[in-house]
């Protein structure tokens, strides 16, 4: 199933959840936020939100800045 993760074309198994996408990118979920097609997915909903074909998933974290 084709999706875009952090701007890169990617392939994930059907029924993959947002929580699984996050876990594939970073070990620590602290300080992380997720947008699914530009809408924030609350942390409490990560485990139950399933990714669909052609979804854009952005996983963001705090970095040095400002």
């Amino acid at each position, binding site marked *: 199933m084709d999706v875009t993760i952090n701007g890169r074309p990617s392939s994930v198994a059907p029924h993959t959840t947002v929580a699984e996408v996050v876990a594939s990118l970073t070990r620590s979920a602290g300080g992380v936020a997720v947008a699914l097609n530009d809408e924030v997915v609350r942390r409490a909903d990560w485990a139950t939100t399933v990714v669909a074909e052609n979804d854009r998933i952005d996983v963001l*974290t705090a970095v040095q800045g400002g």
Partner: protein
Amino acid sequence: MTYAPESPAAPAGAAPAVPDPAADPLVIAGRAFTSRLITGTGGAPSLRVLEEALVTSRTELTTVALRRVAPGAEGSVWEVLRRNGISPLPNTAGCFTAGDALRTARLAREALETDWIKLEVVADERTLLPDPVELLDAAERLVDEGFTVLPYTNDDPVLARRLEQVGCAAVMPLGAPIGSGLGIRNPHNIELIVEQANVPVVIDAGIGTASEAALAMELGCDAVMLATAVTRAKDPVLMAAAMRDAVSAGRAAYRAGRIPVRRYAQASSPGVD
């Protein structure tokens, strides 16, 4: 004949010479801070140096940016802040429109579990100057969404007033462009902003060295926000100490009230008979 002092000796437990900063807290949106130095985290040579500089500065509020996770990145600035008890202040750096800033702010709220946002909406990469139209629009919408908004703004007293009117918790006028180290280019405008403001005024951007941080406080600013001056100094930790002391000294001087400037001398010793 015994010597009799003209005045009684100072009683034990006399007031310390240095004012207690805890008695003069910085209050933003009902939250009190002992330190009046807000720091950024960009530009540090390493997380280790950044951590030492932040701890030395005694800052209690520090900005971070929000970016896509880089797989395999070692250590995180968020962890550095957490273990030192420093509150993160997420920013919307890199946003050019109100829409961008809103999206970033909502993600930052989720990531960092704070509704405080340092709002930056800039006009172009070359100057990084705030875009006043987009900034005011974004500020109003974020306040409506329940954010505590601290906007990075121009040194424009009118815009500062408008930002306060839409409900911003502070105003953060620039001394000079971000990272320029040009100091405070229009101290008169900063004074005008301070005079009229009913929310804290935080000088943000342009500070290059300690005397400029002290000047900001002497002009009546409630706090100083800086990053580059420390993180890109030859010795960031030593500069962090310098900034900590400068902000504290500048605040004390402001509260003490400077003498009026005179055109001619006024003897400080008694005349000779």
